[in-house]
């Protein structure tokens, strides 16, 4: 019979190392995908996965009061991602600048790489969204991703980010407004 997360957590707090290994196995994918959404590359996502679990391990004595472990883990991963986003801000801006290619070059590239049309268009679209998201401040970006991609409610996000729900609401509104402005043409597309 599969153990529930609270049972695993209890064993982990009591000092059972195998329970920690089970928690890692159970939640590492969730942390990786969330971190990848926020940071946009494998190396950073990998760093977030490792660091989040190591931090949790080190703070295991404080976990006794944790009622919702996935939410707690998301909070740890999100906070570390925000730190990384702030640290990498200059670097990612530089990458974005060098990545920006004029439309005709992209079309030319699509011919050379022989990617099917739809697949290529999707790739370009995703790249546009990634760049639009990269322009947002860390907290707005993470709020938008947690809400619209991961499906967390505003009150859950408030809990994860440690801020009032009104702040989440405001950050989400501002993030969407900026994204709509950047992706105006794409959003007006009737396709």
């Amino acid at each position: 019979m599969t153990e529930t997360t609270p049972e695993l957590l209890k064993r982990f707090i009591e000092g059972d190392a195998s329970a920690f290994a089970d928690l890692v196995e159970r939640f590492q994918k969730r942390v990786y995908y969330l971190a990848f959404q926020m940071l946009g590359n494998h190396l950073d996502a990998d760093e977030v996965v490792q660091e989040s679990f190591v931090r949790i391990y080190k703070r295991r004595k404080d976990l006794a009061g944790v009622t919702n472990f996935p939410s707690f883990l998301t909070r740890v991963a999100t906070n570390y991602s925000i730190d990384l986003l702030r640290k990498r801000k200059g670097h990612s801006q530089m990458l974005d600048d060098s990545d920006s290619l004029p439309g005709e070059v992209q079309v030319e590239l699509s011919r050379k790489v022989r990617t099917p049309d739809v697949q290529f268009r999707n790739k370009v679209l995703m790249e546009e969204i990634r760049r639009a998201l990269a322009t947002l401040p860390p907290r707005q970006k993470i709020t938008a991703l947690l809400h619209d991609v991961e499906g967390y409610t505003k009150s859950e996000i408030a809990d994860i980010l440690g801020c009032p729900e009104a702040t989440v609401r405001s950050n989400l509104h501002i993030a969407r407004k900026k994204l709509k402005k950047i992706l105006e043409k794409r959003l007006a597309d009737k396709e």
Partner: protein
Amino acid sequence: MTCPYTRSLLEDYVDKELSSAEADAVAMHLTTCDACRADYEATVKLKGLLSRRAVPDPHPEYWKEVSSLILARTVESAPFEATDRPFDRVRSSERASFVKSLISVAASLGIFIAAISFGSFGDKAVSTTSTLMEPQVLSTSALVASAHADANTETPLANRERVSEAMLLLGPPGLLGRFPEMATALGIE
């Protein structure tokens, strides 16, 4: 319902967080207002685009590798122990606190000895205050007077006491002065 009011509820409408009455009112307004409907459609589309963002799967072996790395890092940083000691750091901090207490005990002992040593000078200064005020009288005139008295008459008791006080000043200072046995043992008379 006005446009500004509809716009203020639009995101909650998209997120399905409005009461049914409010949702009906927004829906009604959207059927009649092109600008608000365009905004609504853009919000819905944006949400759809964001949720479609795909994360490329890492290599299948990655999950095993990252698990092993995490476990190795945690074992290095703080292995589990049967005695409920979460970290090695606890041991080193215990060692550090033991050394600190040892140093503080040694320092206290040093201060105590120094206090005794200085205290012996202090005592003398207090006990001989009256004589120290007139050092010449103590060291020379008192002795000369008592010697002269010895030669001629019987020494009065008060004079003898003054002489013995004066002799104390000539004896070894500090601890040796305070503990004459120690002075004797060291051969200092």
